[in-house]
């Protein structure tokens, strides 16, 4: 602990330090390569959300996980089901949730389970307002327990 030292700015060597000329070359190369990108046959994909996935109870309070999940789900599913344990499927298998049955009915993976087990409606409202921006750009079905 006594050996700690802060590095002075003039002593620091950056991992990547581009000059203006470097940046111009980078911009040019990126533009050329991006223009050519559509003709590249292989293009890696973003991670996919498994059908019937639901956020584990242990991660219910991790709003960063909820944000990540709803963002991915919004890209992939037509409708997000938002709510508490009823939507999440407490005491149910993943294959017995509302989202699963709706997907079975429509014969397509259209519904994502964005419920959170044990979530109070007010907490859920705040979570959606501040930490789930992706739901604004997709269709959402919301369920609230009126007694909550």
């Amino acid at each position, binding site marked *: 602990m006594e050996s*700690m030292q*802060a590095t002075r700015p003039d002593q620091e060597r950056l991992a*990547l330090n*581009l000059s203006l000329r470097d940046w111009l070359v980078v911009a040019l*190369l990126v533009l050329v390569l991006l223009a050519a990108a559509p003709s590249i046959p292989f293009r890696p994909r*973003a*991670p996919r959300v498994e059908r019937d996935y639901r956020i584990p109870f242990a991660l219910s309070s991790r709003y960063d996980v909820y944000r990540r999940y709803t963002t991915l789900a919004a890209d992939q599913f037509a409708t997000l089901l938002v709510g508490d344990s009823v939507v999440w499927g407490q005491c149910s298998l993943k294959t017995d949730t509302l989202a699963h049955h709706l997907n079975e009915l429509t014969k397509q993976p259209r519904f994502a389970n964005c419920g959170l087990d044990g979530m109070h409606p007010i907490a859920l409202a705040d979570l959606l307002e501040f930490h789930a921006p992706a739901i604004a750009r997709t269709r959402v079905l919301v369920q609230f327990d009126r007694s909550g």
Partner: protein
Amino acid sequence: MLFHSVDFLVFFAIVFPVHLLLRRTRFMNGWLLLSSYFFYAWWNPVYLLLIIGTTLVDFYVVRTMELSPRKKLWLCLSLLSNLGALAFFKYIRFFTQNLNGLLSFVGVHTALPVLDPVLPLGISFFTFQSISYAIDVYRGDFPAEQNLLRYATYVSFFPQMISGPICRAGSLIPQLRSAPPVSVSAFTSGASLFLTGLFKKVALADYLGMYVDRIYGAPENFQSPALIMATFSFAWQIYFDFSGYTDMARGVARAMGFHLTRNFNAPYTASDLGDFWGRWNITVSMWFRDYVYIPLGGSRQDRFKTVRNVFLTMITSGIWHGASWSFILWGAVHGIGRMATRELSFLNSAVSRMPLAVQRAGVFLFVTFAWIFFRARSVGDGCMIVLRMFSSGWADPRFPVILLIPIAVVWTYQIIDAMEGPARRFWDVAPVRIGLAVLMILYLALVSQSSAQTFIYFNF
């Protein structure tokens, strides 16, 4: 507002040109302050009142303290304001829950109401920055700032207010007194830092996070290989996440002509735990050294007291990271490790004569092991993960192996960077620099998610 969002791009596109226009005038700090408050209010405007309140209290209390013969009293008032806010917003729930548990244990069946306020973003950082200012003035290391606007800008300067680096008054306030030297090279160098940070965060940390979240979300469902891979992944995720954030913060500040203190220096190449803490979250580590460890007596007392001081400092660091027993346990594990390695270093044992690579590997393994308790949701979960690592089966961990490539590149780079000689100069060659930048941008544009994930250290 996240650095890696379109919102921030628009925000900076407005703030930066106006800053260029005003930086030689007396309006510079006013503009920076306005921008910083807007940046913070984007998340929750109500909590802006908290920052303004603690800033006003500290400004006037510390100014009065400097001239008062009863300095200690005024210092206590400043500490009370900062630590009080921190205690209420960050620890009140943990405290009341544990007190209720204790009361129930001793047979008192009166439960206190459990408050659970929303944690203000960055509270652990801006309160620590304010505390360091008050203590520095108290010690006579820095004169009290007489200009409220400048002081308020120091507390809430937007690149570093949410997750650091924690800048000392002696480092940042003088930079706010004169026109910052904005130049083309400062801007391009800032942009380089920003790109590095963006890549670390979006391409590496967020991707690793998806694997880690899956395993640590339900560790009881996974076997040894998955738990081990997830723990190693988290070690790199948190490094890329936090160092990526500070790279972006420092890049933004540098483009505007300000130097923020370096916060990471290849921590996973550390050769002992003291070295690790001198490389990881450096500004916070130095804060704990200067305002906890040294006031406790540091290493000036006998061996027992030195060991005690190290241990208490690490426990305090654990509590600072989060209000839960798992963070305290994480701090305690590091405290024990620091004490053990310190004692071993006195023995001139075989351990201290080991090759550097072995020492580094040992530190990395220890730090990674400690991260289990940092990441686990509870102490019980952490212990269960450790047990399952050694007792469950060997099912396929389904780890995205491609991620080993960037991790290996970063690690190799850091090890080479620590060396002198021609290998180090390889990274300075223009085609290598440009090639790396092009690859990073293409990866960000084509492969990584378009979504913006929050930073892990925002939770603290």
